[in-house]
């Protein structure tokens, strides 16, 4: 069964489109990475899944239920920057409330976890630093063990060692209690090994949804003389190409099969984070900005 299903979903705010003809099917009990530039529509998508926003048109469902239904609300958690806890509660009281509210919460796991990250149960949320607060929110989300766990940029503000520890906790907890986890992040390289699927959103469109392992051998980067490459590349779906020096072309394209066919050129499989970068790269790129300024300069 699909945990999440979007059919032709559109969402606009003040005539500005945030999601456009958005289609998506996410199998249950998988960890899905959500990548995209700022403003691409990641948060809007997560807000629709969590019932905080309703689609302007189209259909969004969680386990077959409309996203705003009570079933969905009581079985999901949305970790985001503005996730609020009662200000006058101590951390210990917040966790006790979590244990009461969420069916799958296990104090035997949750309490040692918060202890490991050195949270004082007598402290209050407003006494935490920005980074500690983000960590507390993310750990709370993890401990709810909600069948649908949504995390919007949970790693933001955490230092590197904490990020590593948190991701290891996330994976171990997922193995103990499989559930559907969506995690958006700008740190794709750091999270890619945890993921089963990757979703890339660009300008409100779902431009890629793929199993991570399939993706690893599906995009080739090739460098060589333009004339020879152009012949090889006709009819292929090219993601990115650039003349890196006069007459020499670098091209990135979808390809499945053995790369031996291109062995006379410099040719490698793109890494996951490179695929992401090529897919969302602006035309021309920074190189062109500097190229045009340097050509205007007069050295004589």
């Amino acid at each position, binding site marked *: 069964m699909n945990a999440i299903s979007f059919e032709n979903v559109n969402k606009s705010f003040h005539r500005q489109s945030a999601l456009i003809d958005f289609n998506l099917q996410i199998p249950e009990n998988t960890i899905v990475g959500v990548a995209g530039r700022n403003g691409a529509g990641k948060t809007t998508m997560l807000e629709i899944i969590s019932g905080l926003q309703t689609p302007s048109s189209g259909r969004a469902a969680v386990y077959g239920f409309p996203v705003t239904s009570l079933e969905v609300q009581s079985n999901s958690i949305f970790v985001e920057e503005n996730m609020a806890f009662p200000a006058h509660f101590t951390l210990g009281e917040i966790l006790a409330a979590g244990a009461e509210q969420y069916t799958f919460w296990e104090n035997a796991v949750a309490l040692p976890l918060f202890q490991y990250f050195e949270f004082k149960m007598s402290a209050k949320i407003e006494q935490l630093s920005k980074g500690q607060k983000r960590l507390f929110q993310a750990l709370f989300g993890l401990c709810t063990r909600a069948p649908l766990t949504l995390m919007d940029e949970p790693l933001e503000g955490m230092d590197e060692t904490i990020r590593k520890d948190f991701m290891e906790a996330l994976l171990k907890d997922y*193995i103990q209690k499989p559930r559907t986890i969506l995690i958006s992040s700008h740190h794709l390289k750091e999270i890619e*090994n*945890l*993921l089963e699927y990757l979703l890339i959103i660009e300008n409100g469109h779902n431009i890629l949804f793929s199993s991570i392992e399939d993706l690893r051998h599906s995009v080739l980067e090739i460098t060589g003389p333009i004339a020879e490459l152009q012949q090889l590349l006709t009819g292929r779906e090219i993601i990115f190409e650039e003349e890196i020096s006069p007459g020499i072309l670098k091209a990135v394209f979808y390809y499945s099969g053995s790369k031996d066919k291109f062995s006379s050129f410099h040719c490698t499989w793109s890494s996951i984070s490179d695929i992401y970068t090529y897919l969302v790269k602006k035309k021309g790129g920074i190189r062109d900005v500097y190229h045009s300024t340097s050509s205007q300069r007069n050295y004589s």
Partner: protein
Amino acid sequence: MLHDQSEKPIYKQIAEWLEEEILAERLQENAKVYSQYQLAEIYTINPATASKGLAILVEEGTLFKKRGLGCFVSPGAQKNLLAKRKATTLKTLLSSSVKEAGYLGITKEEFQKLVEQEWENQKGDKK
């Protein structure tokens, strides 16, 4: 053990690591192999990825599955792996030698002569 920078997919690295454990006899015939969840925890990777590593080895006959019990090392796995590695390693070395010869403009006959000379050299050394 796993290299993030490696061009090889993680599941292939997992499969190769298990092969090396078998070659080194740290995993013996009929011994139970780590489950996908154990592998996922050892390497902090998604269990689906770990499972794909096991699946390759089952497909190749290096491991066999017992329903509900997990994966085990097939009888004769070590011997088969040795043979497989010999075949592929030698082939890879030959392929890059021939390619290099091509860059240097060496003909097929010259290359064959080189191989014969090298063969004689090494055989000669042994005497």
